[in-house]
């Protein structure tokens, strides 16, 4: 079956006006998303994951400046396929045509993302009534359905509850129900489990996967936890300092990573194998995005950095049709060397576990 592309981000570049100057948050990002598939965006804090997602949603902060790029979104408009550039649309048009109905979002902190003064039932039905003029009664029935879909018991009673009467995990389920209210094509989850307990995290992930399967929607999953990525994603985009440094299928990123930053992220991932006493952390810290960055932004933290890294930003080198990495190590003139042994061992271990799981 041909894959149906629903989102195409090209050359996205976004800055923020701040009191201390211009902050270049996103510096040229390309991204593709197909129907029914899941892309995970991973990267350390501040790498620009949320800003990218907000740009896709058309909910950038008022101090954001879009320097260049396009966010082409394709959706079904009354039976006709329509492609729009979110970055060129008026805010009011995005709200009316895209938000909620075609792209919905789940935020990081369920404790703060629900309106405390409105019952959860009303918060779920609001967008149906707003966009589709659904009769109140019908909308309420759908809200009850959605609440049971997200695994909330006694939904008839729960719709009358206010957010403060629910636990964090329950609230995140409600947020997911709100997101699903208008049957979107794309669900963007910005660290939906970071604020939750580990046990509840797994359940929410299962829930999103389940809904995705039932409704055949695309999901963008933002996280800094590669463990989460392994559970949910088909494709992974690794982000560093406002750029993609490596992208590939989940297997390519986990078993054949080529960017030293991806190596770092993989080693930093908690491992079931307890022989690793201490978790690895990538040395140093991300660059100051207020200043121009000469060459490769990761070079100062990269023990494999080449001289050229300090002068010239590497392009995306193609490894396979789906796998790309932006590091000069992939240039044919680069010295030959092997992946650090700890990473190799780590990958071998992951492969073994994977095989083990399959049996």
């Amino acid at each position, binding site marked *: 079956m041909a894959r149906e592309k629903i989102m195409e981000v090209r050359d996205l570049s976004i800055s923020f006006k701040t009191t201390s100057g211009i902050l270049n948050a996103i510096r040229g990002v390309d991204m593709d998303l197909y129907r029914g598939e899941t892309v995970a965006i991973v990267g350390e804090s501040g790498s620009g994951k949320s800003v990218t997602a907000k740009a896709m949603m058309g909910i950038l902060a008022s101090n954001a400046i879009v320097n260049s790029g396009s966010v082409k979104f394709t959706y079904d408009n009354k039976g006709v396929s329509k492609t729009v550039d979110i970055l060129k649309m008026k805010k009011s048009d995005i709200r009316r045509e895209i938000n909620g109905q075609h792209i919905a979002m789940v935020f990081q902190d369920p404790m703060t993302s629900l309106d405390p003064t409105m019952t959860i039932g009303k918060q779920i039905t609001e967008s149906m009534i707003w966009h589709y003029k659904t009769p109140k009664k019908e909308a309420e029935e759908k809200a009850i359905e959605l609440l049971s879909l997200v695994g909330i018991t006694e939904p008839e009673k729960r719709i009358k509850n206010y957010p403060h009467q629910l636990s964090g995990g329950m609230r995140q389920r409600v947020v997911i129900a709100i997101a699903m209210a*208008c049957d979107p094509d794309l669900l963007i989850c910005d660290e939906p489990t970071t604020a939750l307990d580990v046990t509840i995290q797994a359940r929410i992930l299962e829930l999103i996967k389940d809904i995705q399967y039932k409704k055949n929607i695309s999901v963008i999953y933002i996280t800094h936890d590669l463990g989460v990525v392994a559970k949910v994603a088909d494709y992974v985009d690794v982000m560093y300092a406002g750029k993609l440094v490596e992208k590939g299928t989940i297997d390519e990123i986990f078993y054949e990573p080529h960017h030293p930053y991806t190596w770092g992220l993989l080693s930093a991932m908690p491992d079931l194998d307890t022989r690793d006493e201490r978790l690895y952390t990538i040395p140093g810290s991300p660059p100051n995005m207020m200043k121009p960055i000469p060459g490769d932004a990761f070079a100062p933290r990269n023990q494999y950095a080449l001289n050229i890294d300090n002068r010239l930003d590497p392009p995306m080198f193609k490894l396979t049709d789906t796998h790309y990495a932006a590091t000069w190590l992939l240039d044919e003139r680069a010295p030959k060397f092997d992946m650090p042994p700890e990473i190799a061992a780590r990958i071998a271990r992951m492969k073994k576990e994977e095989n083990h799981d399959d049996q």
Partner: protein
Amino acid sequence: MNKYILKRLGIAALTLLVIVFILFMMMKLMPGTPFNDEKLPPEKIASLMAKYGLDKPLYVQFFKYVVNLVKFDFGISYVINKDISINLMLSTRVPTSIRIGLQAVALGTVIGLILGIVAALKHNTIWDNLTTVISVLGVSVPSYVFALGLLYVFAFKLKLFPLLYSKVHPFQSSLLPTFSLSMFTIASIARFTRTEMLEVLDSDYILLVESKGISGSALIFRHALRNALIPIVTVLGPLVVGLMTGSLVVEKIFSIPGLGAMTTAAIQANDYNVTIASTYIYSLMYIVIMLVVDISYGIIDPRIRLAKEGSGE
């Protein structure tokens, strides 16, 4: 919610009782008695004391005093309207003061909210700056200065309004006093609304509402303002108290035959009964307003309403 209201009512009644007690004690602690005339023989004083029940134990006197206050029986004025029933004096003055006070609260709240909302929505524009200027002026310039300024410009120079309050045109002649009284409220509410709205508009839940595709007045009123109102309501109480004290001066300037003017006169003339009556009425109004504030607080914020009921679960 009912339980919450009942509890608020109880607290209000208790507060009123405490105020009444303090009033009573202050009166008792004043030196001398109402019969301080040196020519009166002691036995005459004793019989007068007996006649007015002043020889009874304090708690009996207090009880009688409370009963009379509850019945709104304030006795007669000794000085400013000699031997006239205080109730008669109050019957025209209280409605006038309450009307002007309510007009000022309503005007101040509505204009304050509008200014604050516009400033927050048009953050960092000329509208925002204009609101800031108005707030600073309104908070720092006392109401009698506004009153005199408005009088000079709109009544004396432009002759658009009468100079003094008149019972013939009670509404038209109450506009200038209303406006001078409400300036402080306008300014405080505008400033507060702006801050709260900016904070709410920046919150995660507003972002979620936007990501649902909701915009315009639904976003502003149903979600943002409703949440911003919670802290705004809390400052309404103190603001209304400010209005009451402001009215003392403004009523004087515009010669409004209101409670404020009567209170000032009574205090200056040592007319105890009248002073007590108006203090009592002021306290009562204050307590009613606090009650209204508390109840609307519960209506707006389900966390308050439901917490007090021990959450329906």
